[in-house]
């Protein structure tokens, strides 16, 4: 490979300029133990790395899936069609965000270790927690950007489908009216018409959908932090992925253990302590499950979103702190 360049590179050393570095600002500056710009550099690097690993090809599958579902013309009721579209879209978003969070994050550190790039980074004046934080934020930016894309497409498709369904339904009523003009005088017929149209809008594009998308992002963020934590002590990528998936699944049932533990069920036996252990170890992913309610047309309170976001920050903070402790003295 590159024979000519190699030969060129073998030109006599005498022709080459010697090493004479200019004075750099960093040489005079004291080293700071925390540098947002360093973290941002690591963040954007992780993001670029994932992007150039062609992870965004996944998004094409997403696009194809929701466009297919949106226009496959099942003879469903309009509400059902819209529900199906939202379920598939939000489900696919959850799935992609989850896959990115687990598979992507699980690969990051082992890959750096295997390629020895970790050495070159940690041999620069980069504290290990900054390296971890950079990886975490890089994944979060990746998930955020991909969800932004999916969300934009999703909203467009739902909006268009809703408009089409409203028009179709209104046309059907108008045709009926043309055939039976006396129905124009019938109040309950008119009410039915309004109700049918309102049902479609109710299942159409609403702000609450954005709350569901945000909840999916928050859940994926916690999953990213969990996976990063696992990968700091795991010895293989496979172990990281399998454990993280297990955490993901158990995390959705964690609230059962917690409720049981806090319910003050009679002492004795091992059930209650076991429930407590599950509640303590695993994160509560069920807290983020508002997709169902949103798809069924339930409104989402702003306070709930704030609480959810706050809990997520807490999870990220604690898990990243734990990960830094594990990683800070790890032998590489």
């Amino acid at each position, binding site marked *: *490979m*590159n024979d000519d*360049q*190699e*030969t*060129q*590179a*073998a*030109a006599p*050393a005498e022709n*080459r*300029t*010697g*090493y*004479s*570095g*200019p*004075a*750099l*600002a*960093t*040489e005079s*500056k*004291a*080293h*700071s*133990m925390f*540098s947002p*710009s*360093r973290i941002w*550099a*690591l963040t954007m*690097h992780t993001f*670029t*790395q994932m992007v*150039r*690993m062609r992870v965004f090809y996944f998004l094409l599958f997403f696009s194809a899936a929701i466009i297919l579902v949106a226009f496959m013309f099942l003879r469903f009721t309009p509400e059902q069609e819209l529900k199906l579209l939202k379920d598939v879209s939000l489900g696919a978003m959850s799935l992609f965000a989850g896959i990115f969070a687990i598979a992507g994050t699980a690969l990051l550190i082992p890959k750096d270790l295997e*390629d*020895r*790039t970790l*050495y*070159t*980074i*940690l*041999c*620069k*004046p*980069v*504290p290990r927690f900054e390296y971890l934080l950079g990886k975490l934020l890089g994944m979060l930016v990746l998930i955020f950007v991909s969800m932004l894309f999916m969300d934009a497409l999703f909203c467009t498709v739902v909006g268009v489908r809703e408009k089409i369904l409203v028009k179709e339904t209104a046309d059907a009523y108008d045709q009926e009216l043309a055939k039976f003009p006396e129905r124009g005088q019938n109040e309950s017929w008119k009410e039915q018409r309004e109700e049918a149209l309102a049902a479609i809008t109710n299942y159409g594009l609403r702000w609450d959908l954005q709350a569901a998308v945000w909840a999916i992002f928050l859940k994926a963020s916690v999953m990213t932090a969990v996976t990063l934590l696992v990968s700091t002590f795991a010895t293989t990528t496979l172990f990281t992925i399998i454990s993280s998936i297990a955490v993901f699944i158990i995390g959705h049932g964690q609230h059962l253990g917690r409720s049981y533990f806090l319910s003050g069920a009679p002492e004795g036996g091992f059930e209650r302590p076991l429930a407590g252990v599950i509640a303590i170890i695993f994160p509560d992913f069920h807290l983020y499950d508002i997709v169902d309610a949103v798809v069924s047309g339930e409104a989402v309170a702003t306070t709930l979103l704030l609480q959810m976001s706050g809990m997520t920050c807490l999870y990220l903070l604690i898990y990243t702190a734990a990960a830094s402790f594990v990683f800070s*003295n790890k*032998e*590489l």
Partner: protein
Amino acid sequence: MNDTPDAPAVEIEHLTKVFRVPSLRKQTVLAVNDLSLTVGRGEVYGLIGPNGSGKSTTMKVLLGLLHATTGKCSIFGRDSSQVDSRKDVGFLPENPYFYKHLTASETLDFYGRICGLTKAERRDQSARLLKLVDLEHATDRRLAGYSKGMLQRIGLAQALVQNPRLVVLDEPTAGVDPSGSRQIRDLILALKEQGISIILSSHLLEQVQEVCDRVGIIYKGDLVREGKLEDLISIEDQTEIILKNASPALLEKVRALAAGDSTEVISIGRPRTTLERLFLEETQ
């Protein structure tokens, strides 16, 4: 800053590193045993030894990637387990791969960023270092398409990005062909001229011989010999004379002179070129 002006570039004191082997019986492996060495400012120090002798472990402890079981390392007087000691260090690991998805200039930009260089500094350093390691023609190519020698050179540029005062090179020419190897050697010499301290490990004696001021020989975790290169390799009681266009008669005279002076002639013949030199002549 606790950088003391007269502290040596590297000081390793009684370093011992024991690895635990993950198994039921608590087995251990002694990788480095009570190793002490000092690298002066501006000195080029070669750590030589067979594979698995403890060279890389010593370097990793020096760079804070591993923790010393006992003993300590310092870089310009600063404890090397502290992050700030790495401000002055550039490291080229053995067989580095780097991020294949980045181009050469992106690579240098990234390492410059994490070293806290400003945008203008990164741009200047990138241009200067790519010229230095002779990769200007491949600036915008992704590293995935780089040859081994090119990777090694971008690795060296990366190590130099923040103008470190100490450069640590682990097997810098492993797997590189002789021309690439020679190029790296020239770069090391250029760094030396600038007063940069260098510590390099290798199992190729010939290469170490060409660039190092002092050499330490490490074997099974022990530093078995250490000293100035000429002291280590010169054979005290032998002298080599190289003549050009010598006639057989002249050679006979030399032989006779030597015999008269109770000197033994060990060999007379045409000097052999090194394999490396031969390769270069043939390929140019």
